Every structure is written in C-alpha cells, then in structure tokens.
C-alpha cells in the first residue's frame, strides 16, 4: 500500500464527512474491517480517514482488585479492558493501530475542545504508537466542505497540548473522586447488609445533589401564609379590562375587604395616562447552555436531548460545533454567505433577504468567549436527509436566533392609566408593538402578547365592573427542572458544558432524583446526608469550583497538571480515612436507604379494595412466582392480589389506566414490544377490546 496520511476523527459520521470534503473528486471510498469503518480519499496524496468511537482509552486502576479503597495509582488503558460495555472498542483500536503502522503523516481532526483533543491525543499516543508529537491538527467549527478544506490545507503544526493536559487532568481528578467515593459508599453498604448495590457520587455529582436536597428541604418544610389581593375590572366603551390595585398584596383580610367595600360599583376617573416607549434589544447568540435552556422552555427537551440533537445537526454540517461557551459570532464565519444560503429555503427567503439588504451586518453578542469555537450558528447548508421533528425544531431555532441577532431593536409602547375611585387608585395597563425589529425573525418563539386598549383620555369617567377580594397563599420555591438545574450548575461554575447534562442524567439513573420537576428520593436524601455529614468538603460548591478554576488554568498554561493532581489527592485522603473509620454507621444508614428505595420501586399504587394499603409487586415464598399484592396482607387486613406475567421484567409505570384509573405496570419481555398492563380484571377498556375482537372474528367467519 502506498504511503498515506492518517486523519483521526472523533466519530464515524465526522470521518465520512471529512473524507467526502477532502476527496478532490468527492468520491471517497468506505472500507469496513472487522465492523470498523474507515474512509479513503485522494487529494494531493492518499488520505485515510479513520474514526475513533468517542473515548477509546480511559483512566483505570494501575493494578489491584475492585473491592477496596483508597486507590491513587492509575494509568490510561483501552476502554475494553476496563468497561464491560466497551468491548466494541477493541477491534477499533486494532484497526487504527494497523492503519497507523503504514502511515507517513498523522493529523488529528477531532472536535476542537477538551474531550476531542484528548480523544485525538490518546489515539495517536497509544493506538498509533507515540505519534502525538509529530501529528498536525485540523481546527474547524463546522463540518462544511469549505471549512474542512481550509483546515486541511492550513493545519496547526502540532496538537494543543495545554488543552490535552487540561482534559487529562479533568479525567484523572474525576476518576480519583468518582472511584474512591463510590467504592467507599458501595462497600460500606455491602459490608453492612451483605448485598451489593451500586452507589455513586463524584466531584460534581455531590454538590449538584446538594442543591437539589437543599431545595427539597425548603419545599417539604414550607408553611404557606395567607395574603389577599384585589381583582377588578373596568368597563370602557362597552368592553371590560382588568385593572391592578395600587397595592399588590394585603397582609390583612380586613384591609382588602375595606377596599372592595369602598370601590364596588363606583365610577372612577382616569387621572393620568403615562405612555412610554421601550426598546427591546435582540437576543444574544446561542452558547450550548442558552440553547439547552431555550429548547427546554419551548419544546421541553432535556439538556441532554438538546445536546444530542445539536451534535447530530453538527455532524450533518447544518450547524456549527455546539459544545461551545462562546456568545460571539466573529465576521470570519461570513454572515452574508450563510444568509445567502438560507435564503434558498422558502420559509427563510424573505427574512434572510431583508438582512442581506442591510449595509452592515453586526450581531448583538454576549459576554462569554470560547477560544476554540464561536457561538452556535447555522452553516446555511440544507439537510441531505429528512430531519426528524425534534431535529427540525432545534435547527429552526438556531437559524432564527442567528437571524434575530442581526435584527433591529423591537420598539414597544406601554400605556399605564391611573384610575381614581373613591380615594383609591387602580392601574389599567396596555402594551403594543410599534416596530417588530428582531422579533420578526424569532416570531414562533416569542410569547409576549399585546394588550390593546381603546382610545382613552384623562378625565374620562369609567365604571368599576368587577371588584372582589382574592384569597391567596404564598407558595414554596419552585422545584428545579433539568434546565434550571443546568443553569444553576453553570452559575455556580461546576462541571463543564460537555458534562453537566450527563451528570443530571446520572442522578436520575442512580435513583437519587425522579420526575421532570425534580424530586429528591429517599435514597438521594440519604446519600446527600452521608456525604454532608462525613465528607462535607466533597459536596462543597466552593471547593468544587476552585478545583474547576485550577483545571481551567491548565488550558492556558497557568497551572501545572501535577500540582492539581497532588492537591486533589491531598484533599481526598483525609475524607476517605474518615469514611473508612465510620464505615459501619454509613453502611447502616445506606443499607436502610437502599432497602427503602427497593421497596419504593415495587410500589404500584393504592389498594382499590382496602384503600389504606399499597399494591406492590411481590414474590411468593412457596412458588417464587411474581404477583401484585396489598401491603395490608401482612397485617391480616386485605387479601387483594392480581396475577402478573412471569417472564421478563415488570415495574410500576407511574401512570394510570385511561379506562379505569387503576395504576399501570410496565412489562418488558424479550422479543416483544414493551407494554403497559392494566391488571384490573373489570377494566372497561378490556371489555371493549374483547367485544372488538369478537366482532372481528365474527366478520372474518362470515
């Protein structure tokens, strides 16, 4: 085989796109070896573009068993040697190693960020045989042909080692914390109860759980207090308009009653009319956090889902690299070229053309910068396949936001009329848009409504149409949702843009939190309690943030990797000693929590017969068969029971049947589609289905 340049990418999709872009005739060739795809392209020389599969190497314990701690000796090793689920990385490494042995030049073309740099580095170092020192680096923010060609023709002379060091350190510190603390918790519980359950915590997971527990405590111990307000309407030219009383809330019921008494059925007079113009600036471009927040608020997509959709759109060369903290759009991305391409799509044609007609295009920008990538923007490319509905939505959101940042400020008019009634004052408020400005581009995603008022003038008499006291109560603070939690993590400076969404998902998968409006489970409470009591430093936001800042300084060569690692170990040692000393107490507390959590997981709902017991998935001691029974059976009160399928898994669906309102059970069986089982033998839906089947068989018979 002739000599060639080996280009390493992060994922297969990116490899294919790079090969396609770099082949001078656009005729790249796909080869598959042992299930591993790679691509051949011809340009000035032969190119072999080989993808990694995300991280192919990971931090592992240098030697020793899994069931002890502390462990501070680590090394980087292939993922297949450490993780049971990473077996597929073995052929991947073998293929890359074979291709590297004949390669003349090496180029890393992974995403230009912490993770991407580390993936490229570890592949070049371990799979290619210490080629990290001679490899060049392609730097790009979109997978468009032009940018990829430019990145190939003008590569950086070497890898970004500062970024790599920062990435390595982050993985190593996270490993030290994760493996030691998780082992301490898991082993404490196992030694006490004799049963194994995976319990985990980590450097960022601990403080994040602490926020949630803090909020949950406020909610659960909240005591509402009463207050009152006035609900009133005036009639102007035959129509009713809501007006606000001058005092928003009353602490005493009697005070609110006095206002109602004084103003009910009275005629008021418009004393003053205040008209103001408001300029609403365009929004700033999306960084990943802002895109995740907006997608959650508009479409209810979790941050992780948005991140994945955006990643797919990036791999399709439809948007720029999404894992960015930048809120800036440099002119080099060529605004006009993007808008020109967007104007080819009918729905953006008019909007993009209007922007193209401007003499100067200057985006409104946010403060945050990212040295590696600009803010998220559309490339202007059109999809090469039919996008899914969620992909379409996120793509449209990115496009409209991109156009909106070039828009003029929106101008709104607000009107506030003060109405005097028997010595009291009410305010009539209206608002309307005078000039749409940037909102034209972002219209589908703007929710503010206009309140149009009739023509009114000072001195005009109006009659009070409705006047009533409203009884209200203060409410507990809102629960976090995945999006607001992500924002909180961002504000507190813990985690990175690439890891925050995954950390939130881990809290769900470990059973520490549940539901969209996040509720902390008993297990979550107990884990947070143990960590807070025995190793408060681990859940300290301040400590976590300081460590994050130090790791960020490695990126700019202002901090040394070894110093950070030594500090992390020094902080961790006393914590682990304390955990070991108290292992018995911790084990007892956690075992109880695990037992409660396991019981909780099996509870289906309230018993429809005795009304006081709970229906649970139980196992017969005699037959080992699975069934649904009432918890009151053990007290000798209720003998209600229902059969369950014996194969596969069955767990509470946390939903009720539409036909009978009984709780449903989610059943998953090999070779069958999972289904929701209503175990009510008299469910009307079952009856309907039976009749339908009977009719069907009759029809077939006739």
């Amino acid at each position, binding site marked *: 085989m002739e000599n060639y340049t080996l280009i390493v990418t992060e994922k297969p999709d990116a490899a294919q796109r790079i090969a396609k872009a770099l082949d001078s005739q656009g005729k790249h060739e796909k080869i598959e070896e042992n299930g591993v795809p790679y691509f051949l392209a011809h340009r000035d020389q032969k190119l072999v573009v080989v993808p990694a599969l995300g991280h192919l190497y990971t931090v592992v314990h240098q030697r020793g068993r899994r069931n002890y701690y502390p462990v501070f000796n680590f090394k980087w090793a292939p993922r297949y040697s450490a993780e049971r689920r990473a077996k597929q990385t073995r052929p991947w490494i073998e293929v890359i190693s074979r291709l590297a042995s004949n390669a003349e030049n090496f180029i890393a073309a992974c995403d230009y960020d912490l993770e991407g740099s580390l993936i490229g580095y570890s592949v070049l170092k371990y799979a290619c045989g210490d080629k990290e020192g001679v490899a060049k680096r392609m730097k790009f923010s979109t997978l468009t042909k032009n940018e990829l060609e430019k990145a190939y023709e003008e590569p950086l002379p070497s890898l970004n080692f500062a970024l790599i060091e920062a990435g390595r350190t982050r993985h190593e510190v996270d490993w030290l914390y994760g493996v030691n603390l998780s082992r301490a918790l898991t082993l404490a519980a196992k030694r006490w109860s004799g049963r194994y359950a995976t319990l985990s915590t980590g450097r960022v997971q601990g403080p994040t759980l602490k926020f949630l527990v803090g909020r949950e*405590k*406020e*909610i*659960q*111990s*909240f*005591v*509402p*207090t*009463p*207050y009152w307000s006035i609900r009133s309407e005036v009639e102007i030219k035959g129509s009713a308009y809501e007006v606000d009383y001058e005092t928003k809330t009353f*602490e*005493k*019921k009697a005070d609110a009653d006095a206002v109602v008494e004084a103003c009910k059925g009275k005629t008021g007079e418009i004393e003053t009319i205040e008209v103001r113009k408001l300029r609403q600036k365009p929004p700033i471009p999306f960084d990943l956090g802002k895109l995740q927040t907006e997608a959650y608020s508009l479409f209810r997509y979790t941050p992780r889902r948005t991140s994945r959709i955006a990643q797919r759109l990036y791999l399709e060369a439809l948007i720029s690299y999404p894992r960015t903290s930048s809120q800036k759009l440099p002119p080099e991305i060529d605004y006009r070229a993007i808008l020109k391409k967007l104007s080819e799509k009918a729905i953006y044609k008019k909007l993009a053309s209007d922007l193209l007609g401007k003499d100067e295009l200057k985006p409104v920008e946010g403060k945050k910068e990212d040295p590696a990538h600009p803010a998220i923007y559309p490339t202007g490319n059109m999809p090469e396949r039919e996008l899914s509905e969620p992909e379409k939505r996120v793509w449209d959101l990115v496009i409209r936001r991109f156009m909106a940042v070039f828009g003029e400020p929106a101008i709104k008019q607000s009107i506030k009329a003060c109405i005097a009634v028997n010595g009291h004052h009410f305010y009539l408020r209206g608002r309307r848009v005078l000039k749409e400005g940037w909102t034209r581009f972002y219209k589908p995603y703007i929710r503010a409504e206009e309140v149009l008022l009739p023509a009114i003038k000072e001195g005009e008499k109006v009659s009070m149409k409705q006047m009533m006291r409203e009884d209200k*109560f*203060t*409410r*507990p603070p809102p629960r976090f949702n995945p999006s607001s939690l992500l924002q909180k993590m961002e504000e507190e400076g813990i985690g990175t843009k690439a890891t925050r969404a995954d950390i939130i998902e881990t809290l769900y998968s470990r059973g520490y939190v549940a539901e969209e409006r996040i509720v902390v489970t008993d297990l979550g409470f107990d884990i947070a309690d143990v960590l807070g009591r025995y190793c408060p430093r681990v859940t300290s936001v301040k400590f976590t943030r300081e460590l994050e800042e130090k790791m960020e300084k490695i990126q700019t060569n202002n901090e040394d990797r070894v110093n950070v690692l030594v500090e992390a170990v020094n902080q961790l040692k006393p914590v682990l000693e304390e955990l070991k000393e108290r292992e018995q107490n911790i084990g007892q507390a956690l075992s109880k929590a695990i037992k409660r959590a396991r019981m909780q997981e099996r509870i289906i709902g309230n018993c429809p017969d005795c009304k006081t017991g709970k229906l649970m998935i139980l196992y017969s001691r005699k037959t080992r068969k699975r069934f649904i029974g009432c918890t009151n059976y053990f007290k000798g009160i209720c003998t209600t029971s229902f059969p369950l399928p014996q194969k596969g898994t069955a767990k509470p669906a946390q939903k009720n049947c539409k036909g009978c309102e009984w709780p449903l059970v989610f059943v998953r069986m090999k070779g069958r589609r999972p289904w929701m089982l209503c175990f009510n033998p008299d469910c009307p839906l079952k009856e309907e289905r039976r009749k339908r089947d009977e009719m069907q068989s009759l029809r077939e018979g006739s």
Partner: protein
Amino acid sequence: MKCKACEKEAENEYCELHEKAYRNISREYDVWKKASDVSWKQYLSEIAKNPYTGVWAREVAESLISEIR
C-alpha cells in the same frame, strides 16, 4: 427518642427534617395570627389541609393536632 412525626431516631422531639418544619410552623403562626386572628388549633388544621404546605410541615401539623385532641 423517636421523632413524633415519622418515628425515625431523633435527638429531640422531632428528627432533623421535621424539626426544620416545626420551626417554620412556629414562626409563621405570627403571620397567620396577624392576618386573620386564628387560634393555634385553627392554624394547624388550616395548614394541614393547604395544598402548598410541605409534606414534613403537614406531618408535624398533624402530629400537633393529634396531641391537642
């Protein structure tokens, strides 16, 4: 000693979590009294049935009501 609201081990009358709720209940009574001059008993039954009351606060309120009875 067992917590009066949940029967978990506690150092005082209530466990740590219900203690916090109890403190809130005691503190907010002043606001309720000023607002609508309710008795302690009325106050407890009001908050026990209020949908915005937290679970632990409700449990403490219910245990206090049962003590009064």
